[in-house]
């Protein structure tokens, strides 16, 4: 585990201890779950925690987990804020595909020698993020101004978004060779994969932005009671527009990471199931689907739990086809533990026996 994960973790633990009692309980349980999974990983493969330096790159299972988690952390940050406003964003996977498709199609024009400042790598990345922002704005518009249920509003883009991505790539899965764009997905700085820095930066910046300003409070307020927030003078529409737009931008960035990793943009496969994995991480992190209190750090922990679990399944002798089953069972287990009704039932059963 890198220090950059542990330090905010400790700080947050301290924060939580003085903060809300129940949330700190949940934080501890998630950390316990993560540690247990990591120990299981260590038991399955003895060199799980070993990290080597090869060609200026750190190589090791833990680094892999961080690398694979990065795009999901980006998605989970956006999704957490959206869910906190009592919404949901089903379109992030499709937006990933759109962002990746846009960037790859534009960069290929640059590689083909077309002289246009818009086709230079820097601009291409900005344009892809801008397209993500547009997708998010569209979702936000539907939810905030047309008052459409978030699940349907974003279902529209989830379904048509894949078509749009295919339209951009003209039905192909274009590959590219540009190193600057590839760096987003597979570059390294000080041995660590670049996506890890992106995810960490996004986590820190968004956390500071929502917690050092009143925005975070307003998001929770809108999620808990939109009516009361309105009477309290909160511009609920603006808040909703903001969270969906942020989710769109972060999804496009995740799309760039995925495109950079494989140096291509597949309109079908890029971000497939990503929306569901992101929602899963957020729910494991304890943000309620009915809106309100949220915790970005917990959602990140949720992503790490899911990814460590997947790694454990890969390194174990378990047949790879069992992955989904184990994932489903673990998720159900976590959900049941979070349900007060289930805990009551358990307590009653235990009492009866003793």
């Amino acid at each position: 585990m890198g220090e950059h994960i542990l330090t905010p973790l400790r700080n947050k633990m301290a924060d939580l201890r003085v903060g809300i009692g129940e949330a700190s309980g949940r934080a501890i349980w998630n950390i316990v779950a993560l540690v247990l999974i990591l120990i299981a990983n260590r038991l399955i493969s003895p060199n799980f925690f070993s990290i080597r330096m090869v060609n200026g790159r750190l190589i090791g299972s833990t680094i892999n987990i961080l690398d694979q988690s990065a795009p999901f952390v980006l998605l989970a940050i956006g999704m957490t804020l959206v869910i906190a406003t009592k919404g949901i964003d089903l379109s992030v996977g499709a937006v990933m595909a759109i962002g990746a498709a846009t960037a790859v199609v534009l960069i290929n024009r640059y590689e083909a020698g077309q002289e246009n400042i818009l086709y230079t790598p820097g601009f291409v990345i900005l344009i892809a993020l801008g397209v993500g922002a547009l997708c998010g704005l569209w979702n936000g518009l539907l939810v905030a101004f047309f008052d459409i249920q978030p699940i349907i509003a974003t279902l529209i883009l989830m379904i048509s978004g894949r078509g749009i991505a295919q339209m951009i790539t003209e039905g192909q899965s274009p590959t590219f060779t540009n190193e600057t764009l590839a760096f987003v997905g597979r570059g390294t700085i000080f041995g660590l994969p670049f996506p890890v820095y992106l995810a960490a930066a996004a986590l820190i910046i968004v956390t500071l932005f929502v917690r050092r300003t009143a925005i975070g409070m307003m998001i929770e307020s809108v999620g808990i009671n939109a009516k009361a927030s309105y009477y309290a003078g909160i511009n609920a529409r603006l808040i909703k527009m903001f969270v969906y737009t942020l989710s769109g931008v972060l999804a496009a960035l995740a799309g760039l990471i995925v495109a950079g990793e494989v140096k291509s943009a597949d309109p079908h496969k890029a971000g497939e199931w990503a929306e569901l994995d992101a929602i899963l991480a957020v729910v494991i992190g304890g943000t309620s689907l009915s809106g309100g209190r949220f915790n970005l750090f917990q959602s990140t922990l949720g992503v790490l739990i899911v990814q460590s679990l997947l790694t454990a399944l890969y390194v174990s002798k378990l047949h790879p086809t069992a992955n989904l089953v184990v994932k489903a069972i673990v998720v159900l287990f976590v959900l049941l533990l979070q349900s007060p009704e289930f805990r009551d039932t358990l307590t009653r059963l235990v009492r009866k026996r003793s």
Partner: protein
Amino acid sequence: MKSRFFPLFVTFAIFTALYIFCYTQYSSFGSMRVVCNLLRNNAHLGIPAVGVTFVILSGGIDLSVGSVIAFTGVFCALMIERQGVHPLAAFAMVLAIGTTFGATMGAIIHYFKIPAFIVTLSGMFLARGMAYVLTTDSISIRHPFYLKVSELVYVFPDKGRFTFAAGAFLVVVILGIFVAHFTRYGRNVYAIGGNDTGALMLGVPVGRTIITTYALSSFLATFAGIVLSLSKRSGDSTIALGAEMDVIAAVVIGGTLLTGGVGYVIGTFIGVLLPGVIHTYLTLDGSLSPWWIKIIIGVLLFGFIGLQKLLSSQTSVLDMIRLPQVARGSASSGD
């Protein structure tokens, strides 16, 4: 005309207009061949869509149907080909498994108050995962019973083949309409979707109804899996990927509100056929790229939702854009 019938009426009108337009372009749309193919090709979406309509009417959602279809196909193929079980026995077994699966999801949703979205999402992972665990190969089924079923076909004079799948689809839709409007269970579903606390106070057995609804949805998804297995004569664990979203889109296009309590099974029937008609048109046309179908479905979804919004709100279009809607309570996340 009562306004609650209006979305349904509009869906019908758009479907009719679209069909007439297609007919003017390609006269084959007037043949039983196209009609039968529409029913047959969409049976595996239409059958679970009836179940999902009940789930959405009750105020819930079911994301697991596509995976249940895949699991059913793989389970039947393995049972019949590897274990030598008679197809009918295999069907009975898988229907029992599917129904139990749905009832379990319903019980978790009801008793432990976990959002349906997340419970059925885990259900989706579980069913798909079980299909993968059983086998990742595509297994073809050569049992004589399958051949017999494929011979169960009514051929129209213009060579339109009304197959078992098409018949099963129609029967399920008709039964669905009957159950929704002429049984106590159907009324209970509408009541719970309208207001579950109110329904509970009026003595509606909320828990039993919700569990039955999810069991019904999984039962129909399993049945769709059987129908698909019969027409494909194989079991494949990657089949019907993403079908749950197509099904939900069909239900919404059909005029059912995702908040629950409002909607009709017949609307879902049209909602399933509408993308099918567009698909047939694009296939016949050949010059339009396949990605347009997804974009058009998105546009249709947007159009229908906008329409429903206009009809369900008491205010005019301009008011809707100008005034904040918070006074009517915010939209829920669909859980």
